[in-house]
């Protein structure tokens, strides 16, 4: 196989590297570490982080792309590579990916959701719900065996989940005990009762819940379509998992794209003032004055025209879709940097008047040096808060934009495209609900986790709010 690095893959891994670098930097700076410890104390924040990490893991697996070697008619490897680009996640989910049915089937169903005319062995024709090709195909008598088989698979999944959970827990307790230099039972008691600074109990509980959901799901997915299939018979669970990467890319790469501009321009406008400030303010007022959706629409239409008129730019469909995804991120970045820029400008105006900045000026330090050494580190918390708060908004925006038709490429699997294709299913008789419910549920969980995590980050990094948090807990005690 031939590894392929799509543009967004590169950016995702760049982001990963940047996060790792930031982690190392934080380790060496006590004041940052202290703030992150406060994030770690938030139970809701840590529960959300565990959920986010699960999503990120799926997203990362889906960001390792390759083109499989072509196979000849007998399935033996041949020379050359297919034009289809797959990811490691695709490889892991190969059974799901390949198990397409004819059309709709309900979650865990054994029969198709639509009647079909079949020819009976006696030659007559009848309208029946035919058996699925893959869902429950291992069952002989579907009606009789279905209940037992599903129950057995759930139990088996739960068993393995509990097993994995306990192993993980033991490991965690062991490490924690070594770290605190106490006995294991002591360490376990501390974690359980929430006597640790890091919210271990919330994190472990969430991880356990995730395992208890994932275990049965994996176990069932071996024989059924857990979330059913969509109109063209694709497994909805597979589509949902594939959607995660799109959401994450939109939520993070967009920010990555706009961040350097917003930070540099915001600080420069605030610190340098004068005509620089005038120009930057003019720039963002102009961009801001165009309603976001319309600017995105105009830009996406133009990108679409460009891509359509130059089909020769891209070797594969995946690369074309990826170019459009990247373009969408950049466009969203262009429309969303103004808010952060304005925020940073205002903060820099305040910082500029502070005495430590004037002290640096009294040393004759250059403007660049002051902006880099004094202003930037002191506005980073605003940048961080903006980044984590923007994430959930961007994930939600992707769905809306894709629905309007100015989001990702229709061939890219995303929450938005899923919802768009399934939007009329509720109007069908009988109702097909599973695609929508699966997409909305996963999106809700992702966005909720992101919101809770960003709240924890904001509480920890925004000093204005800490007093209130303490006040809250104190009131709780007296009440």
């Amino acid at each position: 196989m031939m590894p392929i690095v799509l543009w967004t893959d590169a950016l995702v891994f760049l982001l990963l590297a940047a996060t790792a670098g930031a982690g190392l930097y934080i380790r060496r700076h006590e004041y940052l570490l202290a703030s992150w410890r406060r994030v770690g104390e938030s139970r809701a924040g840590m529960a959300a982080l565990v959920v986010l990490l699960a999503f990120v893991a799926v997203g990362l697996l889906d960001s390792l792309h390759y083109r499989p070697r072509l196979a000849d008619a007998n399935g033996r490897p041949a020379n050359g590579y297919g034009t289809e680009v797959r990811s490691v996640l695709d490889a892991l989910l190969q059974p799901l990916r390949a198990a397409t049915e004819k059309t709709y089937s309900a979650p865990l169903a054994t029969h198709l959701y639509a009647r079909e005319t079949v020819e009976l062995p006696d030659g007559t024709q009848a309208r029946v719900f035919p058996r699925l090709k893959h869902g429950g195909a291992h069952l002989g008598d579907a009606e009789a065996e279905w209940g037992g088989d599903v129950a057995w698979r759930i139990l088996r999944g739960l068993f393995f989940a509990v097993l994995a959970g306990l192993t993980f827990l033991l490991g965690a307790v062991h490490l924690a005990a070594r770290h605190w230099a106490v006995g294991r039972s002591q360490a376990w008691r501390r974690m359980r009762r929430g006597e640790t600074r890091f919210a271990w109990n919330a994190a472990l509980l969430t991880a356990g819940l995730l395992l208890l959901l994932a275990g049965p799901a994996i176990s069932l997915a071996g024989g059924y379509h857990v979330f059913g299939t969509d109109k063209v018979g694709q497994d909805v669970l597979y589509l949902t998992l594939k959607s995660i990467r799109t959401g994450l890319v939109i939520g993070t790469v967009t920010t990555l794209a706009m961040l350097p501009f917003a930070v540099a321009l915001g600080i420069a406008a605030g610190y340098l003032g004068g005509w620089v400030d005038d120009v930057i303010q003019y720039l963002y007022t102009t961009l801001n004055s165009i309603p976001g959706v319309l600017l995105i629409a105009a830009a996406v239409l133009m990108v679409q025209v460009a891509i359509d008129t130059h089909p020769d730019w891209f070797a594969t469909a995946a690369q074309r879709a990826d170019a459009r995804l990247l373009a969408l991120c950049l466009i969203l970045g262009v429309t969303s940097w103004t808010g952060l820029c304005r925020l940073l400008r205002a903060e820099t105006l305040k910082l500029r008047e502070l005495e430590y900045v004037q002290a640096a000026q009294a040393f004759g330090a250059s403007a660049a040096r002051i902006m880099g050494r004094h202003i930037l580190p002191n506005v980073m918390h605003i940048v961080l808060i903006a980044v984590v708060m923007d994430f959930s908004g961007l994930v939600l925006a992707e769905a809306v934009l894709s629905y309007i038709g100015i989001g990702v490429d229709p061939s890219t699997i995303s929450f938005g495209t899923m919802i768009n294709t399934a939007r009329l299913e509720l109007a069908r008789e009988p109702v097909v609900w599973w695609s929508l419910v699966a997409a909305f549920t996963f999106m809700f969980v992702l966005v909720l986790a992101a919101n809770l995590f960003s709240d924890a980050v904001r509480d920890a990094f925004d000093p204005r709010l800490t007093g209130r948090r303490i006040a809250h807990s104190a009131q709780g005690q007296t009440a």
Partner: protein
Amino acid sequence: MLAYVIRRLFYAIPILIGVNLLTFTLFFVVNTPDDMARMQLGVKRVTPEAIEKWKAERGYDKPLLYNENAAGAARLTDTIFFEKSAKLFVFDFGRADDGRDIGHEIKTRMGPSLAIAVPTFLLGLFVTVSFALLLAFFRATNLDFWGVVLCVAMMSISSLFYIIGGQYLVSKVWHLVPISGYAGGLDAARFLLLPVLISVVAGIGSSTRWYRTIFLEEIGKDYVRTARAKGLSEAAVLFRHVLRNAMIPILTGVVVVIPLLFMGSLLVESFFGIPGLGSYTIDAINAQDFAVVRAMVFIGSVLYIVGLLLTDLSYTLVDPRVRLQ
């Protein structure tokens, strides 16, 4: 005061020129009219003649900025820039790709857009401010805690879900109101009820939380302590002192969107089949009708600038410090 307004209006001109240049660049420079024609016509029917015909029908066959073949002022006016971009300044939007007059369409579609946006705006503001006041009044209690949890949950739900779910439940399962459509006059209420309701509910989460933060910030200020030291009840403190001060950031955040109400809400109008500007825009995007999108971009930025102006004026209404200085 008047000088201030005039200055802000002067300031709007370079911004509108900037918007205009930006859209011009996006629509005519990044991709040439030939590209657009090719895409509109579809790959199969692309012949040089077809492209020329398409362009000529829509007035895209002129030079971009400077017409060498024309004489006098027409060298500048008989160009795409003048015809398609500069004319926007006098609100001459030209014709859509389907040949209809955009200005006329906008006039007729403004009514339905406002009919849905204005009630949404007013009702939403009332509901969220009341809800936020309630949470602020019971701050640091269980009611406040669960209220905030509810807000976070509600703002984590996609607006598409509110619309699709609301339509399914209210119209399809309960048969309370029509699923979609629009009629003029009093009859409109039947069609507007659900979209307004859904829009309000979809906005509750984030707005309430934002307003609550503003209220709490005000409650922490010194003058509130003074008011309590006078012996005033908590309700008097909240309504007479906190609410008035909190209205300053709330109003200024809210006023800027008032002019944009004309633009309608894209999603709701399109889902409920309301013939407003929002659905007009979406249809244009789907049909890749660049003339309409261009016109809407321009109108949008004009309205935004009006909004900024109104924001500044509203400051003077609610804040005596601005009014009297």
